[in-house]
């Protein structure tokens, strides 16, 4: 009896993802229900100021991902600087990037440099 209750509870827990949407700020390229915007928090792995492209390394624990995106002239850069520029960003910086998907891949609408604190 106890076992069947446990099995039912577990089944319910495991089936819920099939009927509930993903967390609002995690919209991914692979999602079947692609939303118009995607937010990534990650660390800049590579950046090219000339081409306006950057690669973020995102993820948790030992499950990491690389996300590539480009910038447009309209991309907002948010840093502590009074006149933030894309060229200020460098590998190792932690950023939150708000992007949209286009035919040419992800394009960043805003890139905000974040501070990382101690615990």
């Amino acid at each position, binding site marked *: 009896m106890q076992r069947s209750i446990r099995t039912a509870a577990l089944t319910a827990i495991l089936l*819920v993802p099939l009927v509930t949407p993903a967390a609002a700020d995690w919209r991914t390229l692979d999602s079947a229900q692609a939303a118009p915007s995607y937010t990534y928090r990650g660390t800049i792995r590579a950046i090219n100021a000339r081409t306006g492209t950057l690669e973020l*390394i995102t993820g*948790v624990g*030992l499950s990491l*991902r690389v996300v590539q995106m480009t910038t447009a002239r309209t991309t907002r850069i948010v840093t502590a600087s009074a006149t933030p520029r894309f060229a200020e960003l460098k590998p190792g910086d*932690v950023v939150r990037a708000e992007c949209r998907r286009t035919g040419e891949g992800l394009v960043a609408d805003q890139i905000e440099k974040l501070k990382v604190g101690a615990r």
Partner: protein
Amino acid sequence: MTRPGVAVTILLLALGCKKPVHPGDPLSDLTEQQLERFGRGKLVFDSVFTPATGLGPLFNSVACGECHEKPAGGRGDEVEVHATAFRGGACDPLVQEGGPVIQRHAIPALKQALGIDSEPFPPSATARALRTSPVVFGRGLLDFVPDSVILAYADPDDKNHDGVRGRPNRFVDGRIGRFGRKAFVPTLREFNAGAFVAEMGVTDPAQPTEENIGGKPIPAGVDVAADPELTQEAFNVTDDFVRFLAPPTPLKVGKEGRRGRQLFSQLGCAACHVPTLRTGPRGMPAFRNREVAAYTDLLLHDMGPDLADICLGQAGPADFRTEPLLDLRGAEHFLHDGRATTLEQAIELHGGEGSGARDRFKGLSATDRAAVVAFLKSL
């Protein structure tokens, strides 16, 4: 209760004895609600995933409890493969080639689509590492040790001239790491969230995307479960289950074990295997201002070329985090890859910063070496 039972209870209370914590037990001072979450989390931890419920396409195991078993949260006999590239002093976790965890199994649909039984080994890797599944008891308490406590034990320039130079590892975003054999992961929650995906291919809200297959996208129709494949609540209770697992109470030691404990310190083992760390004032009451007798400093130490394998974060190939010494009584294999089958072997395989203590251990009489082992087996 019988008269002798009452007498024993009164005697125990009078002596201030606490009920010993066995491997797999929860922390002793959890609330009823936390105990209920512990129980629900254990169900998810022990549940077997299938492709329909999110397993794969690549995976190492079908359940958390398949590797962390006997009891749930304990160690297992599975060995997994990690790969990274170390070039010019920099470490590449080879994310775009499927690293750093290289899964050893594929679900039937992936086998059928690509004809592979496991993830292809990354062609750019400079090293391959084998990793056993450690016990996860006491990890919740270690999560609440403040960074400042870890840093207080660091001595990267060996200013005290003891030959031991602990230093912290850092995650890709610069935060201090503490979990995993290379201390790469900053928090238990992130380690657990990453493990669902890296070990079972079960996506969760913190990592809602599957990894690629050796750098290539997953073939259409192979991954049938919608992402994330685990709900936030199912993840949260599993995280709580792991977090609430208590460090087992050390077994009572006799004269030999007490002598071993003394020698452990005198030999210099405790320079890295720091007997206790103190948690900070933040978090749930069960985690605040507690001494954690885990025998680790959570720092990286150079263990010499014979143990070296992969890099990870700022850890070079020879750098390993001091392994917590918890539940050694039940261990049959030792070190990060399980290459040692006895505690004596494990000590004798210490190199680099551990070589001083190792040599002093080797210089002991057989009786004293046995005392050190007796002490370790009490943990």
